[in-house]
């Protein structure tokens, strides 16, 4: 099985995110970057598939120079090689331009399966996976929490949680799947893995190598543009309900919820 994993490097979810005073963007100074948590499920599922069925796992990543660290981490987990799409013309786009860049790279490789995280925890767009599948002309199933390749390797059976229940879906391969929490427990990279990763092939491609023109991708090609960034309204501090007994405090709470908040 040739498996591709789309990977994005994002700020750690613990990060304190500050909006620039002029609202033009987010302060990136001092941010710690990691593999997008949902992409870790994608890497892990790809590795498990390779372990069961043989083949190769290739990481494809759109990102600047700093993304190399996360790519190497995925290689350290066990991926075989990586393609790094690193060109400013590709950045500052929208989900569709990112999908176009990934599609251009992926069309140059053989594949049976593509795993993506369900969304990136920086922009929370949750679009690249389905859009990429559309551009490649392959079927997709999103937010899977269980994955199995069926006999013959020509189809997969997956489970996904939807509102109100769980769906079991079958899909012919090649196909793309976006990964939801609960699919697997991503492994930690071992020390030998980290050492091996340094020697694994990591190819860098730019706009020309992808055969794309500047106005198809990045900021020029984007149909969704950021106008301004702003901070969420601060929640006003509330109050701790005081009282001698639990009964007293609960009675007060009920009164406040009914009369002040009017939510019950």
């Amino acid at each position, binding site marked *: 099985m040739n498996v591709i994993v789309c990977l994005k490097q994002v700020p750690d979810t613990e990060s304190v995110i500050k909006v620039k005073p002029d609202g033009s963007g987010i302060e990136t100074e001092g941010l710690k970057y990691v593999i997008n948590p949902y992409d870790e499920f994608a890497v892990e599922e790809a590795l498990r598939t390779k372990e069961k069925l043989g083949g190769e796992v290739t990481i494809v990543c759109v990102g600047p120079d700093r993304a190399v660290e996360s790519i190497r981490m995925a290689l350290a987990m066990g991926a075989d090689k990586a393609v790094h799409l690193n060109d400013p013309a590709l950045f500052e786009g929208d989900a569709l331009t990112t999908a176009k860049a990934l599609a251009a790279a992926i069309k140059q490789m053989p594949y049976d399966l593509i795993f993506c995280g369900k969304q990136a925890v920086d922009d929370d767009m*949750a679009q690249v996976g389905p859009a990429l599948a559309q551009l490649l002309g392959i079927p997709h199933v999103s937010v899977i929490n269980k994955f199995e390749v069926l006999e013959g390797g020509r189809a997969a059976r997956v489970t996904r949680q939807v509102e109100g229940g769980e769906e079991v879906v079958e899909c012919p391969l090649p196909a793309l799947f976006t990964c939801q929490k609960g699919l697997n427990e991503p492994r930690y990279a071992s020390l030998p893995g980290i050492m091996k990763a340094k020697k694994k092939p990591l190819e860098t491609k730019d706009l020309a190598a992808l055969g794309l023109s500047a106005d198809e991708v990045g900021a020029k090609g984007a149909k969704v543009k950021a106008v301004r960034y702003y901070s969420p309204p601060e929640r006003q501090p509330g109050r701790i*309900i005081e009282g001698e007994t639990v009964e007293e405090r609960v009675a007060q709470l009920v009164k406040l919820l009914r009369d002040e908040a009017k939510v019950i």
Partner: protein
Amino acid sequence: MAIWVFVEHREGTIRKVCYQMMGKARELADKAGQELWAVVLGQGAESVAEEIAAYGPPQKVLLVESEALAQYTSDAYGKVLADLIAQHQPAVVLFGATLTGKDLSPCVAARLGCGLATDCVGLDIDGQGNLTARRPIYAGKAYVEVSFEGRPQMASVRPNAFPMPTPAAQKAPVERVKAEVKPEEVRTAVKEFVKTAGERPELTEADIIVSGGRGMKAAENFKILEELADVLGAAVGASRAAVDAGWRPQSDQVGQTGKTVSPNLYIACGISGAIQHLAGMGTSKYIVAINKDPEAPIFKKADYGIVEDLFKVVPVLTQELKKAKA
């Protein structure tokens, strides 16, 4: 030019966010001097079309029917909707930011090569029908206002971002059209749907949520939260700690790697209030925190807090609410 709202439904029940979108979309359509259409895809979905016809209300409900649309698949729905959009050229298309909406909308956007903003909590339109949208990023730690190039301009809307409209006395007409989908165009197949929802409302749609965290200590202890939820007609949520401990299923998780909820009331029991949890419930109208740790960060975000052992408080709260109901 028109604004379209994609109306999602399952077994005759329309997703709550679709009603909310109809209300907001009516406002946008009026501002831009445009028509509003509700678009229903399905098979045997007349009752859905009749129901949504009163909300907004739209100029019309487009009911698109085909055997291939009986079950949602991105192939069938994506093709039919994209073809319809190409045919009728609406200026704006709105989807609920539900799992289906977030699956379908990027497929349609990719087919049409148009812009799509996900999980929007604010929408506006100018006189020329150009949409601007406000959406959370970094799990709601920041927000961005976006504009669009080209047409159509699409957005998926977060449940509870907009209020429920009241139904109009006058219902819009329903226009029925048939869709053509060749069987080979639908590549995925839903083999099984196992209903897991009980009587309680769905988390992202609930008005009240009772939620438990690490302080619950064991799976069976969630029973006291379920009893409280029953009195309140609430949904029951959980923090990542409770889910990772195996006490509650992933589908109950509220937080950055779980669901984002925006109820009127969120009661957090034994939840410390980590940033990632707050990301999932920080836009709740009112937050109540019950935790025996006075230093728990959740108290800084809660409107009302009780610093006490939740096992002492919750049963008393349930009793008090039962009394009040009687």
